[in-house]
């Protein structure tokens, strides 16, 4: 569905994305995971044609960018990290504008609006100005807007950033529903639990480079599924094991108190880069 070959983006001397190769299949929920500044948003901006790549190729559903820009734009639904709803328009008018920009017929726009506002549970707010909506409601409206023209691929850039845990769970349910409806979803996040809960595969990025690729399970297996964790001096020490019994034996040899737990993507990231996803 999405093929990226040798993608590079430089801003002056700074390399934001460095020789990225990636393939994302149809119907996948794929995560770009990494700390702030890892290049996640720049990748999304290049895929959505908001930023031109310095080098490399992007193919989406047998179309090539930027040559087939118009066709690709019709296939993509985009939910950016920041709220970019039109504050001067109502909830319904924001969707109406999107439908018009995507050349949808008036009758179709009307039907789709009713359908999607119900989908994101905002049907009561159709005439309200977007400024009166909460953060979670705005994010849901942005998802409804991104889905309005029936795209095949959805880009979600940090979809739950700044939202409280309850609203975040609700958005996760919505993303799972999109997956069950066979949408291809590419999401960026720096929340480990979000990537683990939602993504079939993740690409871990560090300073614009791809450092690991696979399902959360695979990545954990590669590093070691069990972690022995203990404190020594001022620092936290960890060691990875493939079997719980090996971890337990090792912990038994320590004179300090140690914890044995299952590893997560955060551990994978720390093991590969020497630092946390959120520093």
């Amino acid at each position, binding site marked *: 569905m999405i093929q990226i070959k040798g993608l590079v983006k430089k801003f002056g001397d700074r390399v934001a994305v460095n020789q990225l190769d990636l393939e994302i299949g149809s119907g996948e929920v794929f995560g770009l995971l990494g700390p702030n500044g890892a290049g996640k948003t720049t990748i999304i901006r290049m895929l*959505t*044609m*908001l*930023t*031109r790549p310095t080098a490399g190729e992007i193919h989406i559903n047998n179309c090539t960018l930027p040559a087939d*820009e*118009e066709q690709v*734009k*019709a296939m*993509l639904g*985009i939910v*950016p990290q*920041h*709220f*970019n*709803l*039109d*504050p*001067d*328009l109502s909830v319904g*008018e924001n969707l109406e*504008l*999107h439908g*018009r*920009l*995507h*050349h949808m017929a008036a009758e179709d726009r009307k039907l789709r609006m009713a359908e999607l506002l119900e989908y994101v549970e905002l049907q009561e707010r159709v005439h309200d100005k977007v400024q009166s909506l909460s953060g979670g409601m705005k994010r849901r409206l942005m998802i409804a807007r991104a889905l309005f023209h029936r795209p095949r691929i959805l880009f979600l850039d940090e979809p739950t950033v700044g939202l409280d845990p309850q609203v975040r769970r609700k958005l996760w349910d919505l993303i799972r529903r999109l997956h069950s409806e066979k949408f291809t979803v590419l999401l960026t996040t720096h929340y480990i639990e979000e990537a683990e809960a939602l993504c079939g595969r993740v690409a871990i990025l560090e300073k614009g480079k791809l450092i690991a690729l696979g399902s959360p399970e695979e990545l954990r297996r590669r590093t070691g599924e069990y972690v022995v964790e203990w404190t020594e001096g001022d620092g936290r020490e960890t060691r990875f094991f493939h079997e719980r019994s090996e971890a337990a034996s090792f912990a038994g040899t320590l004179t300090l108190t140690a914890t044995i737990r299952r590893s997560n993507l955060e551990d994978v990231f720390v093991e590969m880069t020497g630092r946390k996803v959120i520093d």
Partner: protein
Amino acid sequence: MFQDISTVFWRDWVVLRQRMKTFIFSRMVTPVLYLVAFGWGLGRNVQVEGGSYLDFIVPGILALNSMNISFNSVGSPLNMSRLYHKTLEEYLVAPISPVAFVLGKILSGTMRGLISSAIIIVLSYLFGARFHVNIQFALIVTLNCMAFSGLGFVAAMLINSHEDMGNFSTYVLLPMSFLCATFFNISKLPTVVRTIIELLPLTHCTYALRAIGAGGNAPLASWINLIVYVLVLVGVSVWTMERVRK
């Protein structure tokens, strides 16, 4: 293309429709002050080119007001949309051409400029000014509105802070408001200054409106000047849309 232009225009029309009363009343303040101060006050006993000063300045007030309204109708909201609200991205990721977006915005700014010009024409008649209004007059005002909507577009896309947008108005629009033959005849200005002023679109809009208002025709040079500015600024606006993706 036409559908996309109308979509961009539709959005701005929805916003204007909600604020129409505020828009109309707020647009009356400046011209009423100009008409009272320069028409009734300063100009009561002044004769210019054989006519009343009020009749002389009305075309200038129309030109400068349509310039300010068109520039600010496009410049300020678009700058906010690009830098603060980020709503410009909604257009950039949609399958519409940069040309359609530029033309939609310029037409929207032109519409606001024309509404405000219509208000001034009515007010000027109420203040006792006498001048001819015909199709030619409306076309010149339209070209002026298009040129300054285009300038507003370019400024909004190139200037990277809202404060600097204000500075642009102070350094570019404000001097033009007073120097482009709006309030006085520029024939007595030093040649170099006059030559520069005569290259500016506001000067030609004022010249043309004054000529038509007096019952004559707009000079050919004024038509050419305004049309060239519109075409160049539309072209530069489209270039800025391409540049924003870099």
